[in-house]
């Protein structure tokens, strides 16, 4: 919707953004050809997770925080497990880490396929949604759905179900899958490897507007491989810090037009997510992924958020390869979990959600009850850069007609695959959206 202000200014307003997770809107004011105000409006009602985590047992955050987001529950479960295990001074054995990574690969595959084909591709091909797109591009939509399904099946196999898996616990899993159970999904994953390569080739053909993002990137870096389930924060400005120090660098601010908090890194705007991971971890991708990325026209660093759809494709391919590797190396007969006896203390954890780094921090009392909880999801970290991109995009394409400009701006938001459900969970104030 657009309208003209009394003084001749112009307002672009989208009340309800489509094809994003959760409820948000966009508001842009333009006067005399200059973009004056830009807002990503987050009016999803807050659900107060951090408030009601207080007083819960140290075993509960994986199940409870999963419910913050139905699209990336494993990101929450994994970061919660690391944080509680850190608070209790427990380390999990390497095979538990491997299974966390395998489950997480399922979430990356599912979430990236969902975003690439059902949410983002319609922007490039000019459709309202994937169902409309399927009429003219059935092959592309079927490819996306097939990939998405493998991700969901991997999550169900390891976690019990694709949304809010039941098999994750602090210290490990309730039950380990056997080698023969895991073997059942191998043919589908092998097909998915070809599908992922086809997906990368397909999205590489889209038209990408020229756009460069100047902000620092932050992502985790793992000891081995491309960071998924764990790692240490690093940035393109050369900063690195242990996960346990995240609150010293990352601060959250409440902005009035939003039911979410916005985060800054040492006071500055920064970006997390696929572009950050890719740019900071290109050397850790497999040769096949690197080659596919180059063939799709990417360099070792990517600063154009419109191209994030290709980067998601490369990460999807990587997740499929990793899943195959972990299954291939899986050995039966090991313990499903280690005990995590509670103790008083504080612990932090982080993982790479499909949309970017997620941080959790818990403080426990001696009996293991939570006295304080803090969760910093990717979308609140990206919110300031989304608005900055929106401003730059609106200014760059100001000569487009309202309809086109609005669409371009919506696309600038969807580049981030923003998860508004995630971004609003933690506010302890009640903000009336009316």
């Amino acid at each position, binding site marked *: 919707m657009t309208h003209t202000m009394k003084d001749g200014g112009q307002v672009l307003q989208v009340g309800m953004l489509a*094809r994003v997770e959760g409820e948000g809107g966009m508001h842009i004011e333009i006067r005399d050809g200059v973009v004056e105000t830009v807002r990503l409006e987050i009016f999803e009602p807050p659900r107060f997770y951090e408030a009601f985590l207080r007083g819960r047992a140290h075993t509960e955050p994986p199940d409870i925080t999963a419910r913050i987001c*139905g699209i990336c529950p494993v990101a929450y479960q994994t970061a919660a497990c690391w944080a509680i295990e850190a608070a209790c001074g427990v380390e999990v054995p390497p095979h538990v880490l491997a299974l966390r990574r395998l489950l997480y690969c399922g979430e990356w595959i599912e979430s990236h396929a969902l975003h690439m084909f059902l949410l983002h591709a*319609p922007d490039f091909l000019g459709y309202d949604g994937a*169902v409309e797109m399927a009429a003219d591009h059935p092959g592309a939509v079927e490819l996306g759905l097939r990939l998405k399904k493998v991700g969901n099946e991997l999550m169900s196999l390891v976690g*019990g*179900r*694709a*949304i809010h898996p039941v098999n994750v616990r602090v210290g490990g899993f309730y*039950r380990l899958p056997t080698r023969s159970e895991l073997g059942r999904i191998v043919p589908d994953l092998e097909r998915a490897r070809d599908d992922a390569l086809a997906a990368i080739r397909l999205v590489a053909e889209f038209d990408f507007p020229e756009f460069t993002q100047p902000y620092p990137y932050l992502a985790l870096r793992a000891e081995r491989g491309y960071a998924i389930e764990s790692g240490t924060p690093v940035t393109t400005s050369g900063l690195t810090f242990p996960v346990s120090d995240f609150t010293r660098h990352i601060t959250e601010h409440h902005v009035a037009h939003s039911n979410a908090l916005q985060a800054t890194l040492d006071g500055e705007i920064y970006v997390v997510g696929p572009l950050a991971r890719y740019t900071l971890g290109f050397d850790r991708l497999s040769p096949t992924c690197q080659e596919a990325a180059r063939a799709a026209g990417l360099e070792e660093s990517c600063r154009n958020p419109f191209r994030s759809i290709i980067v998601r494709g490369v990460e999807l391919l990587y997740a499929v390869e990793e899943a195959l590797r972990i299954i291939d190396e899986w050995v039966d007969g090991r313990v499903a979990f280690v005990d995590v006896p509670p103790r008083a203390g504080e612990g932090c954890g982080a993982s790479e959600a499909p949309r970017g780094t997620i941080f959790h921090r818990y403080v426990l009392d001696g009996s293991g009850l939570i006295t304080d909880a803090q969760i910093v999801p990717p979308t609140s970290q990206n919110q300031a850069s989304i608005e900055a991109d929106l401003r730059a995009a609106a200014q760059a394409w100001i000569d487009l007609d309202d309809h086109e400009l609005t669409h371009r701006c919506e696309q600038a938001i969807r580049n981030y695959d923003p998860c508004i459900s995630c971004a609003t969970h933690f506010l302890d104030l009640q903000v009336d959206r009316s």
Partner: protein
Amino acid sequence: MGTAGKPSLAVWKFASCDGCQLTLLNCEDELLSIAGAVTIAYFPEATRAVVEGPYDVSLVEGSVTTPHDAERIQQIRAMSGTLVTIGACATAGGIQALRNLGDVREFRSVVYAHPEYVETLDRSTPIAAHVSVDHELRGCPIDKRQLLELLAALLAGRKPRIPTYSVCIECKERGNVCVAVADGTPCLGPVTQAGCGALCPSFARGCYGCFGPQDSANLPSMTRRLRAQGMSEPQVIRLYRTFNTGAEAFRAESQRVVSGSTAGTATAEEVST
């Protein structure tokens, strides 16, 4: 009716995690045929296109937590032929209904100048507390097979087959070893409505009640069993007070345990947050 005489489907979101509506997009094999059988008239998570109401079928995810949403659900009811609530948020207020326990601490009237206004804001309520509901799907999240059965039944004009027995029956159907009997694992299966296919016991885990209370459940007996299996009163209370804390049977039983507890084992303060 939507275009070409096809029934129209709308998907609405209230306070929720999006997981239940994602279940619809997770029907990868069926999605395109569903889209062929109905007009997807309103589903912002999937499409920018909006077809004006009225809608033949509305799926409602999430709970009511703001005055604006309390009005919005009335409008949606007025525009909808069949209204179906999907998931624990919509059917019981969801995990965010834990805030409702704030009244235990009696902070509202102390903190707010207008408690009558804050009341709505301060509670997370199920959709059925506001409008009449034609069908409900339980679960946090809902089960994909149940969603497909419901849509198929609505399209065929028949009653959906949604079982109302307990998770225990599904465990037997699946041939699971009972985790409660075999390992003494606390399990809410006997009092939880079926629908998930006895998922947790299949993963050597006790059910934590994400499908909410089964109709004829004997909660006091469940509590005795959980206590005998070594759970403390605060643990039992927390188990009832999670994803279906607002469902009447779980709410009442947790309250009963709170009231019956002796000092030092479970104070209201300890269990209410």
